[in-house]
């Protein structure tokens, strides 16, 4: 082959250019010729590449997926789609999908079985567990929010434990907002004049609609400040990037609050009318000045003060973005960090204000009327969430996902269903998570051969791909403000390729085999039609038009009843002090709490992670299209600051050994992995950063297998007591050159 010298337009040594790979197959002329004559159908759906639910149109030609186009009406994407959308759609043809129901025959070994056999055997085992009076030991784990179908089965048998992945993602934030505000407010980017982002990178953990709103705001002169240990993708287009010492955002937030209060810049009227616990907060933080914060967080005091003043000057059309994954789950003080976020915003008086924070809009869906069923009483949750002597303040709507093997060993969980969720790769310490296999029954409902299925499932019941199925309508609301509620829906665009089923039919099969009559006396079509009815929409109108916007606008009004503040909190006000958090000698208000661990030696680093725009998490890392992007740009490398790399003799592209000690349940191990390094100036020197989508270890996922490392490899499975977070950035690794 001809060697081509690289010509680049950005002349610098550190440049990562695109590799000119030799294609494996390339047949577009014949495609185009064929394409020209073939009729194209366009079917509305919602993306399954992350949890944003971008509305899109699927172009189908010859019964095959051709391409996608964003739905311009959807506030989450405004017609735009990210790379992951295309990669994940193309994965409908990925050869690593599970092609039919499977039964475990040995470690990593499975045999195909019929759906009937799978249903009968699963029902038999489940019935035995319930008959032994341990129905409470049946748990359902899922990536996303409640799948109502599974909830119906749990209700029927009397099981309390529905667990989401959120305890490995952002539960500190939702818990703090729930207890302090009773609502999750969202940033009104469209009207804001000043936006401070800390722990949220909309250009890496992409939400296309958020980026459109941010870029429009920038075009009209709004100021964007990004606080992040890494010059993240959002920081690249911001007015200012403030690199912060990782793990110290709480100090920064408290410094902002101190400046706002001590300089009397805060909204006194709002605080007087709508805030409970202001004095308690101020008494506990009176001495935590911007100067004190600066010593801890590496952002100069003058800068902290300047930001507080600018926020106040632009308030209420200014906000500290409520944040996401990294800050709001992965530190021991994540709950306090989220509390401090609420407080800074409340001091700006931006709640329920245009340009500040607005409630998420959700359409008022209808409901199928189903016959009432006699249901057994439920016991305590098997994961300890909301349980008195365990994790009383953890939200039961989210649960705790990362300590399942301990709950199984303790006999609290005997049967485990895992739906569209891969805790073996997305929760800490995979070696520990593998022990889930020891439950009496483990059923995984995936689309692909993910780690959890391969290592723990006794049965794998593959679901239709999202392009192959209809799913009930969903609200697009959340994270970013939009004036009108919207509903989006999935219609089947392609015929199922394999012997898979819809989740509803999988559960119908199990329920019928358990001799539970008529648990699901409806189809998805009937359910969807009932939901749409009050909105004046039908399946046909949704199919023709895609995203549906409801005319009733969200108003910028603080909830008030009988002249009194009426949030759903105890006082009806924003509660700076949370009574429920005053456990084990803790305070109800946030105060500076240092990270659990800190790097000290020359070869020690805090291991932090974040999203890269090409991957969501384990769900995208086996996509040939997305992994090809990673390869073009050396995406799986671990970032290290140049000054630290120089000291270790590490050069860009070198392989290093990363080690961490994992202690769990009285046992200790050292984890050691090799990874290539990206040497950069774009990172705080105290940490190394890994993109979160890599390190697949399922040998049946050939594309993603052993590409890069994953932060979860180095972290023990711990539970932050207030919100159930997994504290995965409280990890120190040592790094040495070479393998």
């Amino acid at each position, binding site marked *: 082959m001809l060697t081509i010298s690289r010509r680049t337009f950005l002349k610098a040594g550190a440049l990562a250019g695109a590799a000119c790979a030799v294609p494996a197959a*390339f047949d577009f002329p014949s495609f185009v010729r064929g394409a020209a004559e073939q009729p194209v159908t366009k079917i509305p759906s919602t993306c399954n590449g992350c949890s944003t639910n971008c509305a899109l149109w699927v172009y189908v030609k010859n019964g095959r997926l051709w391409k996608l186009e964003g739905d311009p009406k959807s506030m989450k994407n405004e017609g735009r*789609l990210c790379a992951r959308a295309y990669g994940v759609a193309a994965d409908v043809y990925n050869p690593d999908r599970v092609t039919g129901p499977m039964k475990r025959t040995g470690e990593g070994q499975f045999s195909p079985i019929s759906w009937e056999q799978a249903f009968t055997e699963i029902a038999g085992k489940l019935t035995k567990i319930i008959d032994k009076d341990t129905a409470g030991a049946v748990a359902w784990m899922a990536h996303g929010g409640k799948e109502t179908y599974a909830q119906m089965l749990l209700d029927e048998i009397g099981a309390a434990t529905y667990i989401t992945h959120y305890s490995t993602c952002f539960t500190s934030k939702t818990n703090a907002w729930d207890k302090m505000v009773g609502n999750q407010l969202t940033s009104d980017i469209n009207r804001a004049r000043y936006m401070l982002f800390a722990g949220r990178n909309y250009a890496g953990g992409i939400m296309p609609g958020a980026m459109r709103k941010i870029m429009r705001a920038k075009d009209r002169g709004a100021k964007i400040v990004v606080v992040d240990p890494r*010059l993240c993708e959002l920081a690249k287009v911001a007015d200012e990037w403030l690199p912060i010492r990782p793990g110290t955002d709480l100090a920064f937030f408290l410094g902002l609050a101190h400046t706002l209060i001590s300089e009397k810049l805060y909204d006194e009227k709002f605080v007087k009318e709508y805030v409970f616990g202001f004095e308690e907060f101020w008494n506990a933080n009176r001495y935590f000045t911007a100067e004190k914060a600066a010593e801890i967080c590496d952002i100069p005091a003058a800068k902290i003060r300047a930001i507080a003043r600018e926020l106040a000057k632009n308030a209420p059309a200014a906000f500290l973005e409520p944040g996401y994954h990294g800050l709001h789950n992965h530190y021991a003080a994540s709950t306090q960090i989220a509390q401090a976020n609420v407080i800074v915003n409340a001091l700006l008086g931006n709640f329920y204000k245009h340009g500040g924070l607005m409630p998420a809009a959700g359409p008022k869906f209808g409901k199928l009327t189903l016959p009432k069923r006699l249901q057994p009483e439920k016991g305590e949750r098997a994961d300890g969430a909301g349980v008195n002597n365990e994790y009383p303040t953890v939200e039961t709507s989210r649960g705790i996902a990362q300590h399942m093997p301990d709950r199984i060993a303790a006999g609290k969980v005997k049967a485990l269903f895992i739906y569209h969720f891969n805790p073996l790769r997305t929760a800490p310490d995979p070696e520990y998570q593998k022990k889930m296999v020891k439950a009496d029954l483990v059923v995984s409902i995936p689309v692909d051969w993910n780690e959890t299925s391969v290592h723990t499932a006794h049965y794998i019941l593959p679901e239709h791909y999202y392009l192959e199925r209809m799913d009930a309508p969903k609200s697009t609301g959340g994270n970013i403000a939009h004036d009108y509620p919207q509903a989006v829906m999935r219609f089947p665009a392609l015929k199922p390729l394999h012997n898979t089923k819809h989740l509803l039919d999988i559960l119908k099969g199990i329920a019928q085999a358990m001799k539970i009559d008529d648990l699901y006396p409806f189809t998805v079509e009937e359910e969807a039609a009932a939901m749409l009815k009050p909105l004046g929409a039908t399946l046909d109108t949704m199919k023709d038009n895609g995203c549906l916007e409801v005319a009733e606008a969200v108003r910028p009004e603080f909830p008030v009843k009988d002249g009194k503040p009426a949030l759903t909190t105890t006082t009806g006000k924003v509660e700076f002090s949370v009574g429920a958090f005053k456990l084990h000698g803790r305070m109800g208000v946030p105060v500076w709490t240092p990270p659990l661990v800190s790097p000290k030696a020359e070869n020690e680093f805090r291991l932090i992670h974040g999203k890269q725009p090409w991957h969501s998490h384990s769900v995208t890392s086996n996509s040939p299209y997305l992994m090809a992007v990673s390869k073009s740009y050396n995406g799986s490398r671990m970032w290290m600051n140049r000054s630290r790399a120089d000291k270790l003799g590490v050069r860009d592209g070198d392989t290093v050994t990363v080690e961490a000690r994992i202690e769990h349940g009285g046992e200790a191990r050292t984890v050691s992995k090799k990874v290539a390094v990206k040497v950069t100036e774009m990172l705080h020197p105290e940490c190394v950063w890994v993109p979160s989508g890599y390190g697949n270890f399922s040998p049946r996922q050939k594309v993603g297998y052993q590409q890069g490392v994953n932060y979860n490899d180095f972290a023990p499975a711990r539970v932050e007591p207030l919100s159930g977070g997994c504290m995965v950035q409280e990890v120190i690794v040592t790094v040495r050159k070479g393998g």
Partner: protein
Amino acid sequence: MAHYAMLIDAARCTGCAACRVACQMQWQLPPEVFFNRLEFRESGKYPDVKQEIVPVQCMHCDNPPCATVCPTKATYKRADGLVLIDHDKCIGCKYCVVACPYDVRQMNDRGIPEKCRFCAGFIEKGEQPPCVSTCMNDVRVFGDLDDPNSEISKKMKEKPVYQLAAEKGTKPRVFYVKRGG
């Protein structure tokens, strides 16, 4: 007759590569073949560091060296500005690959050097190329420079622009917004 061109505002790009994968779907390309790429560069020292990301693709040059060197005229320039390849005439000599100063050609499995087609066949119907329409940051503007009312014509008047490697005399029809412009 239209004369198509593209304007790229690299300062807006956040490196998501949606443009690359959307294009791959449009043309049903395999994962390893892509018609547009990103060039990443950082400059400065921590914490005063900047990042640049520049999207690059075929420039549809008005004076295309790839067409000049092509012994069979397989690569040709269309009247509306597009530089295209006639696969039936291509003999796989790779002269064009070497001649292109922008390194945008990729070999396909049949030995034909491929590249961005400016979405020929779609744009004539008034469609936007997916690399343009998928971009959440509005990095690219595509349109007809002969139409003074087109978005690209207006934007080109608003902002100072430049071309990559203009000194080579290739006369690219892909323009870039000047930094700070």
